[in-house]
């Protein structure tokens, strides 16, 4: 078969797998790389609270009414708040809360959206129509007022005990869940669109011609191929969720004080804005920096995953 044997495969970019190529492209996206560094530093900053609490014995909840609104000092690097609590350690612990809610709510809502999107896209027809009407209905809702209503829902009316309803854990999970409930639609639509296009690709049709069913095709062909847009969408969702959390906590429906979060630290900043403007600036600035870094990271990932951005 000498005449039909193809010559050796050109080895130009042979050894480089797709993920290496993407990482290389991402590294060249300056804003994305800078954001990655900023986010790592922010995470370190928030986690540094753990050794400070345990080793240095700093307590984010320790009030000192004699030391309210203290300016920055050797003892309180960023001063104290209206209850005389150390602002720095509260920012660090509050950051843990905000980031954790961001990641968890994205994971819960994202996975739900992923499942809805894949099923709607793959099966089409009635399943698709039903799921998408549902999603459209969700999108038509006035989100923020609804979040507030959900945040105000009395858990005892749903049959939870009143101790649980008042506990910090309930407050934390409540906000994770309600944000997840309202923020899965974007991912569901995106995944559906990606699934629709991939299921018509020839490699999926070849598998189906060999007798592959949905349980084979979805994990083997669909999910790996929708992975890149999903990663980008998840990243952007984290940013949006952090904003949602801050708004809800700010309005008093999110993380319940005294547990700090960046949002609820701004809770009564409005009244204090003239007396202690710094207390209003720090948490907001941290939210802003975190979310903008997350968004630039998403942009960098998008650039790295786009096959057209060769260079």
């Amino acid at each position: 078969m000498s005449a039909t044997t193809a010559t050796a495969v050109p080895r130009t970019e042979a050894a480089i797998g797709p993920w290496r190529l993407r990482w290389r492209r991402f590294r060249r996206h300056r804003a994305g790389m800078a954001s990655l560094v900023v986010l790592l530093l922010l995470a370190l900053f928030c986690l540094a609270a753990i050794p400070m609490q345990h080793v240095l014995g700093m307590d984010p909840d320790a009030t000192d009414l004699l030391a309210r609104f203290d300016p920055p000092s050797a003892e309180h690097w960023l001063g104290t708040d209206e209850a005389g609590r150390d602002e720095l350690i509260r920012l660090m612990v509050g950051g843990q809360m905000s980031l954790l809610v961001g990641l968890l709510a994205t994971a819960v809502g994202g996975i739900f959206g992923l499942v809805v999107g894949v099923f709607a896209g793959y099966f089409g027809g009635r399943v698709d129509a039903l799921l998408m009407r549902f999603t459209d209905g969700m999108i038509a809702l006035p989100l923020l007022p609804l979040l507030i209503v959900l945040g105000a829902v009395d858990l005892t009316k749903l049959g939870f005990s009143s101790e649980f309803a008042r506990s910090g854990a309930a407050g934390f999970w409540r906000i994770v869940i309600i944000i997840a409930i309202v923020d899965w639609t974007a991912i569901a639509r995106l995944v559906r669109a990606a699934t629709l296009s991939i299921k018509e690709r020839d490699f999926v049709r070849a598998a189906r011609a060999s007798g592959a069913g949905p349980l084979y095709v979805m994990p083997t062909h669909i999910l790996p191929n929708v992975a890149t847009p999903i990663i980008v969408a998840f990243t952007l969702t984290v940013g949006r969720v952090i904003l949602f959390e801050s708004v809800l906590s700010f309005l008093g429906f999110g993380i319940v004080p005294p547990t700090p979060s960046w949002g609820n630290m701004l809770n009564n900043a409005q009244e204090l804005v003239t007396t202690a403007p710094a207390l209003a600036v720090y948490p907001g600035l941290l939210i802003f920096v975190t979310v903008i870094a997350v968004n630039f990271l998403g942009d960098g990932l998008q650039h790295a995953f786009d096959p057209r951005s060769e260079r």
Partner: protein
Amino acid sequence: MTRYILRRILQALLVLLVMSFVIYSLIGLMPGDPLDIMLASNPGATPEVVEHLRKLYGLDQPLMLRYLRWLQDALVGQFGYSRTHSLPVLSVLVPALIQTCKLMIISFIASVILAFILGILAALKPGGILDGVISLFAFAGISVPVFWLALMMILVFAVKLHWFPASGIATVGDGGFRDQALHLVMPVITLALASTGGFTRYVRASMIEVLRMDHVRTARAKGAAEWRVVLVHAFRNALIPVVTIMALSFGVLFNGALLTETMFAQPGMGKMIYDAILGNDFNLALTGLLFATVVTLLSNLVADLAYGWLDPRIALT
């Protein structure tokens, strides 16, 4: 076309019906019930009286039945009384709706115009310096917490610089056009900035996409000048997805309006709903939420119609 609009309106009404039930049930899950407040002002009420009132207001009935009774009234325009305002719900809601629409429409138009200018400029040379600056601005707009931005603006422009009033829609005793306009500046900027960021990103992405297309090369091959290629051939195509997203986002603007109105003490829908929820004013909160849903559904419908109108390839049937 008429058939299409009819069908879409029917669909929207169906969604509205389902949503009214969802919202009705959710409101019922908020702490306290209508009687608590009534009783708070009358601590001497005996359990018999409470039971009697419960029956009178139908609160002993199952949820579905109460909902149906509410729906029956709502369909003829009876949304009940606002407890906190002691007025019929609609007479509280309508002025607030007008106020909010004013704020939303001005902000929307401002952000659309700004987004088109910035988005097109950024798309002309992706990766260039101008693109970088505009992207930074756009991402800042998307990423800034609206309430914090409002706070900072109050701090800088009202408290420190005294350029603009910090709250309200008019100064008592003045209320002239200039005074009202000054009161609108900060709310509009706050509200517009958030959506401008998102819109700019969409315009930029859409323009870059279109500028890569074959027909843009054809336009150049005809000898058209670059401004003509961008503004006539590319822009019209880029407009199609962007306008859809913008129309859809009009409803989303409501979220920002709630915060902006709360921060700047503007008597609009957002603040009204917020206060109603805080004050257990069930009828007002429920009706307000429903009207907000209607606004979103309407903007969805407009988005679809705009799509069909802009894109000759889409036949709305």
